[in-house]
Each structure stands twice: as C-alpha cells, then as structure tokens.
C-alpha cells in the first residue's frame, strides 16, 4: 500500500514533468525572449531612453481630438455657419460650458476683394455667427469675444478661388 502510493507519486511526478516539458517546448520562456532581442539583432543602444507621454487630461490639447479643429469656413458672401461645422461648434460649446474659466476669441476673416473697412465688418459678421452659435449652446458671453481681421491678415496669399476660400474663415483662439 505504501509502495503503491510512493509509485503513484513518482508516476504523477513523471507525468507532471512531461507536461511541463511539453509547455516549455511550445512556448519560449520570457527570459529567453528578452535575451533574443538583445544586442545580437541590429538593435538599439541598450542604454537608450525613449519617452512616453501620458494622455493629457485636457481634451483641448489632444491633437487628434475634435477640439483641435478650430476653423469654420464660409461660402462666398455668406455669414451662416454651415451644417458641416455643427460637430465642431458643438464640441467647443461642450468644452466651454464645462470649463467656464476658459475664454476664446473668435477671429473673422474675408477674402481680399473689396474695401478694408467693409471687409472688416463682413469678417465681424462671420465671427458673430460663430459666437451666436456657441451662445445658443449655452456658452457664456463673458467667455467669448468676436473680432475681425477683415482682409488684413490673409492666411492664404494669392488671388485665386482656393486662396479666397481659405480666407473666408473664422478661427476659434483659446
């Protein structure tokens, strides 16, 4: 009886061992893997340090986020915020209503055609259209100022339709 039980232990140990060896054969142990990426492959300097930046807690600083989009484009002779820009406006409104200490300036711009002062007033109309949209979504007036650069600070130089379209724009500046 005693011999039997001893035998059982030996047997199970053997089985166990064999099971273990099966595992070791199929998967390389992690230790071995690490040594595998060591200087033997045309590897990086083992003393090099690479940086990981943690995700910012402020979504405003996420370059991939919707808040990174801050330009609203307008059609020729138009001062209406197009539906394409609704998500952008809504995202900034959400951010501003939850971050009441943040303030923005909305800068309106026009293309180069026509007089300086009239264009300044038209650029103002574009900035005001964005301001009103944000206001309707609950953003406080004290957080916003709508100003105009008219045609004085064109982003795109040149006198063709692509340049003019780029300059018919309002920018949200935090």
């Amino acid at each position, binding site marked *: 009886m005693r011999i039997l039980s001893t035998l059982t232990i030996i047997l199970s140990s053997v089985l166990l061992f064999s099971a273990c060896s099966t595992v070791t054969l199929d998967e390389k142990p992690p230790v071995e893997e690490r040594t595998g990426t060591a200087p033997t492959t045309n590897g990086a300097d083992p003393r090099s340090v690479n940086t990981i930046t943690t995700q910012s807690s402020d979504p405003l600083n996420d370059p991939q986020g919707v808040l990174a989009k801050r330009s609203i484009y307008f059609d020729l002779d138009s001062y209406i915020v197009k539906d394409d820009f609704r998500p952008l406006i809504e995202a900034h409104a959400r951010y501003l209503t939850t971050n009441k200490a943040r303030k923005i300036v909305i800068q309106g711009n026009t293309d180069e055609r*026509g007089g*300086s*002062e*009239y264009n*300044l007033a038209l650029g103002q109309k574009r900035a005001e259209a964005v301001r009103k949209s944000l206001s309707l979504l609950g953003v406080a007036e004290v957080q916003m100022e*709508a*100003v105009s650069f008219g045609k004085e*600070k064109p982003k795109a130089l040149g006198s063709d339709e692509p340049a003019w379209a780029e300059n018919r724009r309002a920018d949200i500046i935090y």
Partner: protein
Amino acid sequence: MKQLFLRGIAIIGLLVATTAHAQLRVEISGVGANQIPIAIAGFSGETIAPQQITAIIKADLARSGMFRIIETGDVMTETATVNFGDWKSRGADALVIGSVQRLADGRFDVRYKLLDTVRSTQLSALALAALPQFTRVTGHKIADDIYEKLIGVRGAFATRIAYVTKVGNEYRLEIADSDGEGTHIALRSNEPIISPAWSPDGAKVAYVSFENKKPVVYVQDLVTRQRAVVANHKGSNSAPAWSPDGSKLAVALSRGGLTQIYLVNPDGSGLRQLTNTNGIATEPQFSADGQHVYFTSDRTGGPQIYRMSTTGGEAQRVTFNGSYNISPRVSPDGKALAYISRRDGRFQLYVLDLTNSQEQRLSDTVKDESPSFSPNGKYIMYATESGRRGTLAVVSVDGRVKHRLTTQAGDIREPTWGPFMK
C-alpha cells in the same frame, strides 16, 4: 588718398540714391483741357538752399495738369525789369521770378513775383522766410499762390498726405508732402494699420491698429507723439472720421453684435450710438457742414451708401447704381460724393454730383480703394494696384488729369489727403 576720397563720394552718392528710393515716385498721365503756359525763371541765389525752389514749383504746377511749363534758362530776381513782350512772344502767358537769400538767423528769405505777360501786370508778390528744413514747404506755398491767382482756386500743394506702407512684415503709417516727398514715419508696427484720418487742424491722425490682436481706434498727435485710445470696446473698433470742427469722431463698433456707427469724443469719452439698423453700418463720413453722416450699410443686401442726421432719425439711401457701393467721401464743398463701386467685378472710383445725381467713373484701374479729396476739392487720391503692388493714384474731379505715386519697395495703401494748414 584721392582714391579714398572718391570712394567716399561714391558712398555718399549711394546713400542719397537709397534715400531717394524710399520716396514716392510720381508718374503723370493726362492733362487739363486748358493749360496755362507759364515760364518760371531760376530764382537768383536759389542754389544756396537745400532744395531748388523753382524745381519744386515747376513739378507742382506740371503735376496739376493745369499748366504748361515754358522752359527757360534765365535766372531773374524779383526786382528785375521785365520785357513783357519778349516773354509773350516766347509763348508764356505768365512769368515767375524771384530770389533766395540767407538771413543772419539761418533762415532763407524767398521772394517771388507772378507777372501777367499778356496784360503786362503783376498778379502777386510774396516774401517767405523759413528755416532750411522748410524750403520744400516754401516752394509748395509759392506754387499754391500761383495756382490760386491763375486758376481762381486755392492751391493744395503745401498740404500733406498720410498712408500706410507694408515692407516685409512691417507696417508703417507715413506722412508726406502732397507730392510724396519729405516722408516721415508716424507709426511702425508688425500688425496691420488701416483707415488713417486727419484731424481738421492737421495736427493729429486717427487710425485703426491691430497691435492688440484686434482692431482698436487711436488718435496720435504727430508732433508730441501722444497717443489716445478712442475706442477699444469688446469686438472690433474701426473706421474713424473727424467732425469738421474736430470735436467728435464717428467710429464703427461691433460692441452690440452688429457693426454700427457711434459718435465719440477724441479722448474716448461721451460715446453715443448713432445708427441702429438690422444690417452693417460702417465707414462714417461727416458732411461738410457737420450736420449729416454718410455711411455704408448692407441693410438691403449688398453695400450701399446712406446719409442720416447726426441727431438721429431715418437714413436716406444715396447710391442706386450697381450692387456694391462703399467708402463714401464728401467733397469739401459738400456737392459731390466720391466712392468705390463694383461693376462687372471691377472695383473703381466714381463720383456722384449730389446736386443732380449725375455719376461719373474716374478711374480705369480695377482694384481701387480709399478715396480722399484734396482740401481744395479739385483732386481725389485713392489706392489702387499696379503689378500686384499697392500704389497711390490721383485724378482730377473732372477725370482729365491723372498721376500716380509709387515706391520702389513694398505696398502703399490707405491714403488720405490732409487739410489746409497754416
């Protein structure tokens, strides 16, 4: 040593040339219907002054388009005996003679006479003593006197202009004589400057500067360099215009949402809203009598020019031709209105006779902006483009006389003609 001396001269020559390039260059095209032939003899002793007085007089009169200069190699002092018949036979209806002398206090004493060779009479005589740096002004004042005596209208050569230049990233508000010479920089900035406006006494200029990342209206004293903020309200502040008595400014502010016209004291106090429309109202300009304000509004869709009383009330529409009329400027006599109209995609200078509603196009350029009358009402200066570069153009109100002011480097824009000065 001689080599070094010559090189020194060459360098001085180069410096002079560089200064000259910074000046505006005048190109004249078109002349008046009836030009008065006039001979201007050299003034005795004029080579001692920093500038040749008679060269300034000749350039002024030629630029006006109203005179034909009869060339003469003569030098004649104002006390010389004149053979009128001789000058008449040389084709001159008028003759100018004079002298320049240095006074003990360092000033130059310039004396001149204007003679009518047809009637063998003296039309005018002046004696002007001025410091060396005012030699140019003296020349312009004599040209003004000749213009007035022969044309019957006060001359505006001794007036000044203000305009904005852009060279690289630098914007400059510059002041120059009406011929573009004698430039001075009043303001330098890395942000845009627009809409300069002279105070009626010619001592101050109001303008819009973007130096605070938004348009703000300032008044700058040109002599003392003191600067006052006229309007820095929430939103945009722009389009300053002086009342004829200098006691008020009209400005366009967006503090209420839509851009509207307000009246304000030059120190920023006493703000009062003038227009209250459901569209834009901007570019205010006082009428010559100060009783009305002309302005641009898009209340009917496109921009048109309107007029309303400075005490309030309804606005009347003034322009009806074309769908885009902006930048109203009233003539000094209040009888004409200059403005920019867009027709077939061209932005051009027009003038409207307010007494009979007759409209005339005055330019054949296509990107015109910022008109302003000379203080005698005879000419309109405006900004236009030449080879993708901003230049200034001048046209007589009848459209016959034209000239242009250009710089070698950079753009010139936003011109405004200053008032008569003492």
